[in-house]
């Protein structure tokens, strides 16, 4: 299985308010709210760390969930956020990632 890398889109703004991450897309001003787990993945989306590793380190280590289920849910989240253009996904690390 090929690794999946994720990075936050440069065309968004985000803010953690009262423990809840809210994200706005500059494309259409659509607003998104992320729950705790989605926020953990979002914050770790540095473009260099494989999604599987993010899930192991940021989700499985913090929440009582088995790795395969967590990865499946994370992949679904990534698909959803990518479809809205607020998260970028690739099978290669992002060259400009910080």
């Amino acid at each position, binding site marked *: 299985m090929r690794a999946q890398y994720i990075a936050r889109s440069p065309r968004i703004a985000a803010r953690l308010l009262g423990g809840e991450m809210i994200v706005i897309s*500059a494309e259409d001003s659509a607003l998104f709210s992320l729950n705790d787990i989605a926020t953990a993945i979002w914050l770790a989306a540095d473009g260099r760390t494989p999604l599987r590793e993010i899930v192991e380190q940021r989700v499985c280590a913090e929440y009582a969930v088995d790795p395969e289920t967590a990865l499946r849910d994370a992949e679904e989240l990534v698909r959803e956020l990518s479809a809205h253009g607020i998260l970028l996904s690739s099978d290669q690390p992002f060259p400009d990632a910080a």
Partner: protein
Amino acid sequence: MLPPLGPRGEGLAAELAGTANQRLRAAPGPETDFRHGLLAAPRALEVILNIGDLPIGLRTSDSCFTGMLQERYAGFLTPGALPAVEFDVELVSPEAASLDDDLRVTTAAGRWWLERGDFWAEFDPAARRGRIRQSANPYSIDSVLRIVHTLMLAGTGGFLLHAASGSRNGRAFLFAGPSGAGKTTIASLAPTDVTLFTDEVSYVRKRPEGYWCYGTPFTGELAKPGVNASAPVAALYLLAKGDANRLEPVGPAEAARRLLEDILFFARERGPVGQLFQAACDFVTQVPTYRLTFAPDARVWEMVV
């Protein structure tokens, strides 16, 4: 939603022609530059509108249009003030307007372009100058002014908000909500010790000491203009209609989401959208925000303290 271009019939033209109290000001530029032999060119008239502590000068050679501006924005005129931003307004035939075109607000090389079927405008925020081309109607200039104010506010932590507002004992209260949420209703229920600023669009400016709210002349087509008054913001109330009056605190994330829904903004550029987003987030972390469910009952104002 901005009001559409309205008809400009004989009645309006006649009404405009009848407005005589105009302030003449000779303006620099080719219109009055005698060295170039333009002696026959009309003198420029300037109206200075001070909305939200931002005086904007509108220059045109059309006295009827100037009269219309003075009438429409009567409470917001500041004759003699030094405008912070100046626009030259070129009036064109209303036949050139297309009512079907969507608004486009774009930027390049530090300038903004505002375009809709009924107007075109160019604005250089650094030079604080711009040009507007439209027919002699109040709706287009009103739209341009709203957009320019939102652009000028974007980097300052302020915004224009779909909200009624007013002050009591020197403290301002904002009542935000979309059309139908009850802005006009709650304004109409205000007791006599409340100074109403507006029942439609409020102006929020961030100052070193906190947020200030101002009334604006921006209205829907049927509403009356607000008043030129301001006060420090004490609270934001997110309006909802219900069977009884109820006040509940709202957490910052929900408050930011609701606030962003009610903020007027027209650009889609990443920079200004991000600035506005951060401005809304900053506001809700500093200003107490409540959900105010109310029945059409004046006792709701007992909860506004």
